């Protein structure tokens, strides 16, 4: 046991002499949270739209007012008035505008007579997200043309679906916090644990250690534990800072915070062991860099941290079911946003425990104590 502690002490001391790496590993997931949170969240605003209104009749002016209301109210679009229909469509093609609204000269007459009034909406459908927002805003503006008044009394014959919110509203950037914390854990596993072993091997230092009485278990266990301590510290900082930035309750009750720590601990140990299993025989830090960069993406996106796994194709959903990050993210979301106790997420906890046990055992068994 004393030798395991010596391995831990050596690793921790060495790591403490490189604080820059630790700071970077903490800062990067938080920067990721800020950038991703602000990149994805909120409705699109200021989409440039060309308007060619060739109808100066009542309905033409009314449509124009509706479009201006969209531009001023939700600010979804920025309108540019043009007279040349062909030029407007051409400018959509060359990317100057995201869309063009063409109101034909007989629009008011057709509206008045009720004979298929049409408004042309030309959209750049290579950008699906912008197109969806633009089409939605413009269609709403067109469809609301005939809404002259709002009914005071609801129609009692129509079935009303009542929406009941079980939890308080979670903003998109808040929803990212569990994923960002799990990403911090993964980054921790990239710079501790097996990475230090590979670095020793690369520098030729491992040989001197293998020639001492330290055992396989001492080496694997010691490096995983020291990696665990460092990564837990980093992940906890990332969680606290992310929670403060996004306005999530940091600690809450003792059981809530302990629950978070338990999930972080299980995910950290599991991922450290997995990395040890996969990279325990690598002999160049470059391999760790390339491999772990790849693994980070492979595990992070199918974890449900950014997008619900229900939106994935079947094969990717199947992968999510064996992805430890999926269970960690799910467990953290349950505790952080729903206030669930650990027993309510026992499925996640059991998976993470099993994953850790299998990975740690395989890491020790497959680790080669010779050169």
């Amino acid at each position, binding site marked *: 046991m004393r030798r395991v502690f010596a391995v831990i002490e050596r690793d921790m001391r060495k790591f403490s002499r490189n604080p820059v790496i630790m700071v970077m590993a903490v800062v990067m997931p938080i920067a990721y949270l800020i950038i991703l949170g602000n990149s994805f969240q909120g409705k699109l605003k200021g989409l440039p739209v060309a308007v060619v209104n060739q109808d100066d009749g009542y309905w033409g002016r009314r449509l124009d007012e509706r479009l201006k209301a969209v531009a001023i109210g939700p600010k979804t679009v920025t309108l540019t008035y043009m007279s040349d229909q062909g030029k407007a469509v051409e400018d959509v093609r060359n990317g100057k505008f995201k869309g063009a609204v063409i109101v034909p000269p007989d629009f008011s007459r057709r509206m008045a007579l009720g004979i298929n009034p049409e408004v042309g909406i030309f959209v750049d459908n290579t950008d699906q997200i912008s197109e969806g927002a633009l089409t939605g805003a413009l269609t709403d503006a067109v469809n609301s043309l005939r809404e002259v008044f709002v009914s005071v009394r609801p129609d009692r014959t129509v079935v009303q679906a009542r929406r009941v919110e079980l939890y308080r509203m979670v903003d998109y950037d808040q929803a990212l916090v569990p994923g960002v914390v799990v990403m911090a854990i993964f980054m921790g596993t990239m710079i501790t644990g097996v990475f230090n072993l590979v670095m020793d091997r690369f520098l030729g230092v491992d040989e*001197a250690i293998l020639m001492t*009485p330290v055992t396989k278990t001492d080496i694997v266990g010691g490096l995983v534990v020291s990696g665990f301590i460092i990564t837990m510290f980093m992940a906890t900082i990332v969680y606290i800072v992310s929670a403060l930035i996004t306005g999530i309750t940091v600690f809450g009750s003792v059981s809530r915070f302990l629950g978070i720590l338990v999930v972080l601990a299980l995910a950290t140990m599991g991922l450290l062991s997995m990395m040890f299993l996969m990279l325990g025989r690598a002999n160049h830090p470059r391999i760790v860099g390339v491999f772990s960069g790849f693994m980070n993406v492979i595990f992070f996106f199918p974890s449900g941290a950014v997008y619900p796994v229900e939106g994935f194709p079947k094969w990717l959903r199947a992968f999510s079911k064996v992805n430890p990050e999926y269970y960690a993210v799910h467990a953290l979301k349950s505790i952080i946003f729903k206030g669930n106790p650990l027993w309510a997420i026992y499925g996640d906890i059991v998976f993470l425990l099993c994953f850790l046990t299998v990975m740690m055992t395989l890491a020790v068994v497959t680790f080669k104590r010779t050169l």
Partner: protein
Amino acid sequence: MSLAVETFDIRKTFGELTAVKDISIQINEGEFFGFLGPNGAGKSTLIRMLTTVLRPASGTASVGGFDITKEPDEVRRSIGVVTQNMASDLDLTARENMDIFGKFYEVPKKARQERVAELLERVGLSKKADELAATFSGGMRRRLDIARVLVHKPEILFLDEPTSGLDPQSRRVVWEMLQNFMKDYNMTIFLTTHYMEEAEALCTRVAIIDRGSVIAMGTPDELKSGIPGNDIVILTLSREQENVRNLAAAEGYVHKAQLENGDLRCYVDSGSEDAPRLMKLATDAGAEVRAVSIQKLSLEDVFIHYTGRSIREEESKKVSLFLGAGVPSKLGRN
């Protein structure tokens, strides 16, 4: 006298390359044994097998009375190893490096502290004890490497080219240190080197290894006495080298005439007497003598005598094509 190290037809192969070919040697307790050979000869591979980090392909060895394949833990507890690479952690201080190594060997705290202080004093690093190893010179790091593996008082100390890359002054400091440690701590030392003068200065017995096989073994004097003559006359000739070699070999006073890197090496009893005769012989044969020198026999000559080439002719290392030239492949870890 009991044996500290004994190998039994030990062999190691890497793919098609046989790095160590059925070596059987015996090293007595208290000996300073040198393993001499050029890079790639198999020295490091043998030391790695003896220190349990490489498994022999066949054969085995006993170190400190323990079988390296069956009792590796016991072997590791009884040895200290200074590897070819400087292995002290740069991010740790000298004291931390030694203390942690003591913990690897489970040396009790009080004994460890006393031993660390004593060893740091002996290797001249007391004043630098709490400075990071990264700030040390090559010689200081090497001294720390040696001190670090002595914290647990090993019975046998393995040193794999311990002075490789050090300047002559640092090398002599290390030699003196090793001699003192051996005397004071009653250890057996197994040293590999490709420096002839190192083997001659330190070792009580030397084995010369080339291409995985031991080609000669004995005390330095025994090895030298195995070569005919006392001196070597070296003639640098501009032409007719082969012809002059044949003529010299036919002379009664020349025990052996050998061409090595274009130089004619004649083994004679008295260099001062025989050099003029050899110069005349060469000139008469139509050769132009561009330089002449007389050398006392050394282990270098023993190596040349047995292999026909200089120990300094290094073989190229193989590197991993997958990882790039920065990283030697397993074969290249010699």
